[in-house]
C-alpha cells in the first residue's frame, strides 16, 4: 500500500505525517500526533466525539482520509486553552457542570466553538442545531446548552453577566501550601 506524506497545520503549527490510504484524520491525530482529545466513539460519523475544526469548519474526523486534507488547517480541543488558562467555552463547561463521563466533551466543545466563531450571539436554537450531531448519553443536554450560551456571553465580555459561581465550602487560606485539587491517578 502506498504511503503519502501529508502536511496539516495542526493547532497553528505545520506538521507532517506519513499516511496510509486508510489513515483517517482521527487516527492521524490520535496515533501519529498523540492528540487524544478527539475520541473514536463510532467511526461512523454518528456520535460527533471526534469533531475537530477543519479550515474552521466542524467535521467528524473519523470519516476523512487524511490524504484528502493535505494542506488544511486543523484545530483540536488541545489547541483551545492558553497554557493552563481555559478558553471561554471550556471554562463554561466546567462552571455549569456540562460534563459527566467526559467522552463527548471534546467533540461537543469543538462543535460549540465552531458555532461561536461564526455566530457570537447565538440563540438557544442555534446552539441545539450546532450540537445536534454530538451524542451525549449522560447529561440530557440542558447543562451543555446552558454552558454554550454562557460561553457566548463570556466571549462577548457582556458586563451584565456575572461570572458563574457555584457554592463552594468556605475554606480559609491555609498557612502552608495546599495540596492541589483532587485528581485522578496517573495511568
Amino acid at each position, binding site marked *: 500500500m502506498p504511503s503519502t506524506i501529508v502536511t496539516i497545520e495542526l493547532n497553528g503549527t505545520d506538521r507532517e505525517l506519513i499516511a496510509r*490510504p486508510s489513515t483517517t484524520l482521527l487516527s492521524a491525530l490520535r496515533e501519529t500526533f498523540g492528540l487524544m482529545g478527539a475520541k473514536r466513539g463510532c467511526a461512523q460519523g454518528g456520535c460527533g466525539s471526534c469533531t475537530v475544526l477543519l479550515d474552521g469548519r466542524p467535521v467528524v474526523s473519523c470519516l*476523512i482520509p487524511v490524504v484528502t486534507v493535505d494542506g488544511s488547517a486543523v484545530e483540536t480541543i488541545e489547541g483551545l486553552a492558553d497554557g493552563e488558562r481555559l478558553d471561554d467555552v471550556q471554562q463554561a463547561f466546567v462552571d455549569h457542570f456540562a460534563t459527566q463521563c467526559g467522552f463527548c466533551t471534546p467533540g461537543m466543545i469543538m462543535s460549540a466553538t465552531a458555532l461561536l466563531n461564526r455566530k457570537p450571539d447565538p440563540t438557544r436554537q442555534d446552539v441545539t442545531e450546532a450540537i445536534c450531531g454530538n451524542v451525549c448519553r449522560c447529561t440530557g443536554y440542558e447543562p451543555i446548552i446552558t454552558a454554550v450560551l454562557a460561553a457566548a456571553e463570556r466571549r462577548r465580555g457582556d458586563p451584565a453577566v456575572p461570572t458563574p459561581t457555584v457554592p463552594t465550602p468556605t475554606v480559609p487560606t491555609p498557612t502552608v501550601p495546599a495540596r492541589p485539587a483532587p485528581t485522578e491517578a496517573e495511568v
Partner: protein
Amino acid sequence: MLTSVQTPGSPEAARAALQAGAVPLGGGTSLMARLNDRAGGDLRLVSLRRAGLSGIDVQGDTVAIGAATTLADIEDDARLSYLSGCVRSIASPPVRSLATVAGNLFVPQPYGDLAAALLALDAELDVLGADGARREPLERVVTDGLRAGDLVTRVRFAAPAEDTFRFHKASRRRLNSGSIVTVAARITIEDGLVADIRLALGGLARRVMRAAGAERVLLGAPLNAEVVARAAEADVIEPFDDAYASAWYRARVYPVHLRRALLGA
C-alpha cells in the same frame, strides 16, 4: 481493504480514475462510515475534494452548483436560502461540512433529502463520461443511475420564484434524523388554481420519486385539503420498514405530510 485514495486536481483526472475502476469519494459521510467497519476486497477511492468541483454559481435565476460543494456551503449561501430548511434538516453540522451535493443524490433512502428538493426543482446534472460531457435530467439519474465511470460535475436548476418552493420533512427527531416522509415541491398558484406543480417525495420508496400522479391531480385545481387528499392517493408509493418507521406508518402519514407541506397545516 482500502488500497489507495487519489486526490486528482481536475474533473478530467477524476473521471479517468473512475474509469480505471476507482470509486468516487465525495464527503465520505456515507461511504467512509461503511468502510471504517467493513471487510471486503481491495478498493481504490478517488476523492473529489480537490477536483475543482466545488462552488456555487448564480446567474439570474440559473443556478449551478459544483458536485463536490458541501451542504454547509449551500446552507451558508444567502442566494440559496430556499434550500436552507432542507439542508439544515440533513444530518448535523460536522457531517454537513463534509457531505456533498452529488453525494446526497446517491445516498440510500431514507436519506437524500436534498435530492428530493433538487428533483422538485427539475435539476439537471452535468456528467462527464467516457464519451465526454453530457446533461442528464436528475429524474432519470435517480431512477436509472449512472454508467460506471461517469462523474457528476455539476447540478443545474432554475431558482424557484419567490415563495414557490416548499420543503417539509417528517422525522423522528427534530434534527439529525432520517426521513419518515419528505415532500419537496415547486408550486405556483394563479387565480386560486395550481398553475405549476412539481412534486418530489422522499422516504416513500427505495429512491426519491416524483409524484407525477399527485401533480396531475393538483394542476389546475384549487389548492385545498380535499384536492390534496386526492393527490395523496394518486401515486403508487412503495414505502419500506427501517429503524425509523414501518412501511405502514409511512404510508399512513404521507397524506398528512403532503397536506402540511402544501397547505402549511
